[in-house]
């Protein structure tokens, strides 16, 4: 179909509108980045462009708070939680999607049902469990309770259901045991799903706020969100430093997102398809 002038005008209008929308979405980010390079006196001025560039603001953040430690804690906790979530979810999803056993659908409905329960309902008993197990204020307490997810199981089950059943049936006829089928047949084919869950899980735990907030007491365990909160309440008037810290907080997220969005988009779209 040849593109008529009318169509071209429509496309141009579309582009203009989308461009303006993009600017609206970007403006707060731009302000944040520019403010992080300003001296404090300039932050309050309307002119967004710094007159004196102050890259040393970033070094100053590291001098005032143990920002490197916050980075380490967030990445360390998110990485372990992600690893455990993916392993346990993949195994459970395999049992739900590829094995036949009595009670399977009942147990799966139980899993689905709990996804609707507000997080605050389980928060208090989980806190009590941590107190009893002496896991308050510890890496273990931050990692273990977050490592089992009904959502992850659900997401991977959806992925595994799209794999043709003939494949593992053929392997089973050849005498392969379920573990072999799982490792050699299903896991490689479910790779996009595993990657999607890993990204979602990593991002969720990297930005996790409620649980670390109630669990962490000591400075050396603070994750980025908790560290940011205390940095803001202590040095909140130094907007340029706070903005530098915020920029450093979200840069890993942006890199991860841009490099993995292919998986992320398809995963989110698949996760919403009711199974």
């Amino acid at each position, binding site marked *: 179909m040849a593109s008529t002038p009318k169509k071209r005008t429509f496309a141009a209008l*579309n582009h203009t*509108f*989308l461009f303006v929308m*993009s600017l609206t*979405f970007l403006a*707060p*980010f731009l*302000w*944040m980045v520019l*403010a992080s390079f300003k001296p404090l006196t300039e932050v*309050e001025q*309307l002119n967004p462009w710094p007159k004196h560039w102050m890259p040393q603001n970033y070094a100053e953040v590291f001098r005032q708070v143990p920002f490197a430690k916050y980075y380490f804690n967030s990445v360390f906790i998110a990485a372990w939680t992600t690893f455990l979530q993916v*392993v*346990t979810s993949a*195994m*459970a999803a395999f*049992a739900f999607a590829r*094995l*036949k*056993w*009595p009670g*399977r659908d009942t*147990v799966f409905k139980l899993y689905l049902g*709990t996804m*609707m329960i*507000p997080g*605050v*309902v*389980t928060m*208090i*008993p*989980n*806190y009590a*469990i941590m107190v009893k197990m002496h896991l308050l204020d510890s890496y273990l307490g931050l990692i*273990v*309770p977050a490592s*089992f997810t009904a959502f992850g199981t659900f997401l991977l089950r959806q992925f595994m259901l799209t794999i043709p059943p003939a494949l593992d049936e053929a392997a089973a*006829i050849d005498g392969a*045991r*379920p*573990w072999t089928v799982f490792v050699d047949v299903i896991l490689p084919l479910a790779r996009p799903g595993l990657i999607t869950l890993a990204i979602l899980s990593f991002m969720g735990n990297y*930005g996790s706020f*409620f649980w670390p*907030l*109630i669990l962490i007491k000591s400075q050396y365990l603070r994750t*980025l*969100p908790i560290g*940011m*909160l205390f940095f803001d309440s202590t040095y909140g008037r130094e*907007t340029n430093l706070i*903005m530098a*810290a915020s920029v450093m907080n*979200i840069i890993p*997220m*942006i890199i991860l*997102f*841009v490099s993995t969005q292919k998986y992320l*988009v398809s995963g989110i*779209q698949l996760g*919403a398809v009711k199974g």
Partner: protein
Amino acid sequence: MMKKNKGDLLPALGFIAPNFIGFLIFTVGPVIFSLVVAFTSWNLEEPGPLKFVGFGNFIDLAHDENFHLYMLNTIYMMIGIPISIAGSLGLALLLSQKLKGIVIYRTLFYLPSFTSGVALMILWINLYNPEFGPINSILNSFFSAAHVAGHAPDWLLSTRNLFGMDVEHVRFTSKQFGLGARDAIIIMGVWMGLGGNNMLLYLAALTNVPEDLYEAAKIDGAAKWALFKNVTWPQLAPTTFFISVISLIGGFQAGFEQARVMTQGGPANTTTTISYYIYSQAFEQFKMGYASAISWVLFVIISVMTIINWKLGNRESAY
């Protein structure tokens, strides 16, 4: 092949065990325990055995005027939901026009939702600063350029709202009319959510609308708006329904992070939502019993809303 007939029960148990044990300890057990605790006066600062108080917590809650305000706040902040859904649909429609650069736009729109969290909320505290923030600087220069005697909102410091509701008494007053802290949080939420998961879901749904439906309608000479109304919108109904239910469930649980990071629930408790109330009762006042009771009231509200929604949804869209 003999094994197949007996089912894969034993291997299945092995595969599910790691996840299921964690699920029992950190989800199922806590749900049951939480229900028990809701009927006790358990306070973390007073050690000793659990004291059962029957429906005491729930009766207190019914008379708790703060709770009524916080419920109102929670519902008020859901104004953002329809705005956000409509915006997500609009963006998805634009992006689905097979333009060049769609991936770049999609990335930009998704950015706020992907990076949302404490860092961005701290950013918005500064954007909303009534004296020095860029939002009011722009508004004020606009007012002075247009020679309007306007006064930019005090945003996070203000109890004003779109309905002119008074905080202390149930009445309406023009002094309270305007934009305040709750609206500031709503606007930020729309910015964060507009290009997020909902937009992606709409994009996926739009690509699944059968092309021949459009072709048939075009032959009938339907205009663009008629195409949307008669073809696109009905085809998107299941997606819209799904997004609405999820948003509603989320809406009742929302506001904790915003209140904790941005406002401490103020001014005059106008940004305290149910979830922030539960947090402050449990982890600042240590009233675990009362907090559990509130969380169960929240749970019941969410369940009832969801069931009503499913009933309505099943009737309206024959899916």
